[in-house]
């Protein structure tokens, strides 16, 4: 058991117009999504965006008001959590406080009437998988948060689910442990080859873990893509802001020719016009990655058709390897620049200095 599944993975998920309404306000508003088998999917979004409700509907702990859920090509509506082939790991772990680790892990086998000997053997196997076999006889209250989580993970895995559902699994851990568990979760998912659906509000977590990041807001999916695509090509302002590391700037198309569009806003930005359908005079929002902006003295002469922005440094924040610099000018409330420390300190700027910020036209991304 719990060997990597070599056969064709089952455990793909398909949601069609899935809707859940609480007190007349839709918590999940007709979302459709495909998650391929054996992939790691993160449902990401601010609190109240419907990600947990979506997860709970997948698990069978919440009944959809409309729409369909297919797991392994099978309509699961009306099936109990156990019949769906899913298993859920709860946010606060929800271990049975009156049972020791071994009995917690073996609980589902106990419910199926499997004998104590086999139950114990299997539970020990799964506990070993999460390196908790030494703690088999401990009660949950005698374990640290991280250990409780491992036991909860073992309890979810013992049913050999096709889909593991994780509700904010890392949010209760301290930062060090969080990073460590993140790595372990990813390794475990690869080893077992089952589908993981992981709810989180941390974009760092989602980018680090997922094959598919599903960014949600007020019950709808804003963007569902690979982490690289989400980060490098946010499709709208919300995504760019939520993912972080981007500046959302806006301007007006003032020049347009065959190759290049010039957008005047706070400074001048140039785009390869063939990539986007611009019209003269139109307002354009674009995302600019903070770490791809270069700072120069104001005397710097830019080449023709290269984007730039003059602004005052309002804040310098040293963050170890990086320095975070906030820029501001008359048309621009705030623009974040992330520089390597050695690059930044060459310029010996201080707050209040005027600088010229430049970037390549390949590093911008037009938003809807």
């Amino acid at each position, binding site marked *: 058991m719990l060997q990597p599944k070599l056969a064709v993975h089952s455990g793909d998920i398909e949601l069609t117009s899935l809707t859940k309404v609480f007190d007349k306000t839709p918590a999940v508003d007709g979302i459709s999504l495909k998650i391929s088998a054996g992939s790691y999917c993160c449902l990401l979004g601010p609190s109240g965006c419907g990600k947990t409700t979506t997860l709970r509907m997948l*698990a069978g*702990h919440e009944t959809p008001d409309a729409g369909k859920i297919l797991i392994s090509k099978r309509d699961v509506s009306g099936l*109990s*959590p*156990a019949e769906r082939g899913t*298993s*859920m790991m*709860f*946010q*606060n772990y*929800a*271990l*049975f*406080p*009156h049972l020791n680790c071994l009995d917690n892990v073996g*609980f*589902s086998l*106990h*419910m*199926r009437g499997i004998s104590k000997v086999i139950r114990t053997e299997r539970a020990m196997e799964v506990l070993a998988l999460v390196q908790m076999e030494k703690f088999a006889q401990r009660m949950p209250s005698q374990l640290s948060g991280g250990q409780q989580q491992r036991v909860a993970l073992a*309890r*979810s895995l013992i*049913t050999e689910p096709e889909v593991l559902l994780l509700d904010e699994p890392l949010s209760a851990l301290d930062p060090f442990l969080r990073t460590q568990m993140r790595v372990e979760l990813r390794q475990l998912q690869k080893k077992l080859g089952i589908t993981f659906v992981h709810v989180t509000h941390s974009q760092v977590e989602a980018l680090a873990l997922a094959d598919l990041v599903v960014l949600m807001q007020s019950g709808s999916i804003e963007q569902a893509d690979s982490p690289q695509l989400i980060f490098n090509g946010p499709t709208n302002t919300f995504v760019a802001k939520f993912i972080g590391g981007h500046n959302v700037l806006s301007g007006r198309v003032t020049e347009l020719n065959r190759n290049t569009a010039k957008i005047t806003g706070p400074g001048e930005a140039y785009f390869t016009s063939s990539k986007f359908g611009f019209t003269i005079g139109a307002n354009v929002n674009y995302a600019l990655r903070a770490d791809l902006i270069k700072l120069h003295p104001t005397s710097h002469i830019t080449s023709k058709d290269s984007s730039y922005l003059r602004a005052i440094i309002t804040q310098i924040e040293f963050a170890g390897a990086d320095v975070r610099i906030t820029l501001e000018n008359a048309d621009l409330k705030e623009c974040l620049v992330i520089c390597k420390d050695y690059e930044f300190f060459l310029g010996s700027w201080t707050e209040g200095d005027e600088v010229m910020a430049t970037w390549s036209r390949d590093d911008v991304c037009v938003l809807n």
Partner: protein
Amino acid sequence: MNPKLQVLPLLAILSLFFIGPIIIIFIVSFWDYTEFSLVPDFVFTNYVELFGSKVTYSVYINTLKFAGISWAITLLIGFTVAYFLAFHVRSLRWQIVLFLVCTIPFWTSNIIRMIAWIPVLGRNGLINKTLLSLGLIENPIDWLLYSDFAVILAFVHLYTLFMVVPIFNSMMRIDRSVLEAARDAGANGFQILFHVIGPLSRPGIAIGTIFVVSLIMGDFVTVQAMSGGQSASVGVAMNHKRALLQYPAAAADAVILLIVVLTMVAILMRTVNIRKEL
């Protein structure tokens, strides 16, 4: 101020009204007595007579029987009511309303609640008259009133709430996600009740048990009134000795009863960590 001094007022009250009387009873239980007077002394005759009498054992067995049967019934009803309140009544407001409804019987005194049964259970009472007029029975049922049945009925009526409250309290502390986790692990409703809710309600059951058992073990009014003097309990026997002015004998009885009840409570406390619950 030394914080230990702050305990003094409570200690003074407890000493005067609780510890003091127990010590006096303990001392008096070694006294001698005649038909007219108490004789301060240090004799074991009261205890020797108590343990030497067959009546003592039959009275204890009878009392334990009342306690045992009433306990089982109050537990069954109490657990069911608490379960309903905690898991089937969703809104807090309705929980409070229904909870208050449970306490309505406590707005009147024990005696009135007991006496209220007489017109219901009596030979010419409500039940017998109804059954007679329906033609279901030819003669009135005798065992309804002034019987062990009546005693247990009254105990259940009087003390079920003492079971409901602590069990409800325990159940409200159960994290709802634990129940979902059980469902997720494939447990059906009965299995959740038996393997999760039941064990997690144990502290409440233990506290309720202590209430019900110690109340019944010390009772004499209910037994006397509802059995019509036909059944005896430890309390009834003790009260009988008191009425005959055999205070030292009654005191010895009280000391033994206290030890028996404390032993029962001690055993219960060993099975459940109650302190965690308070």
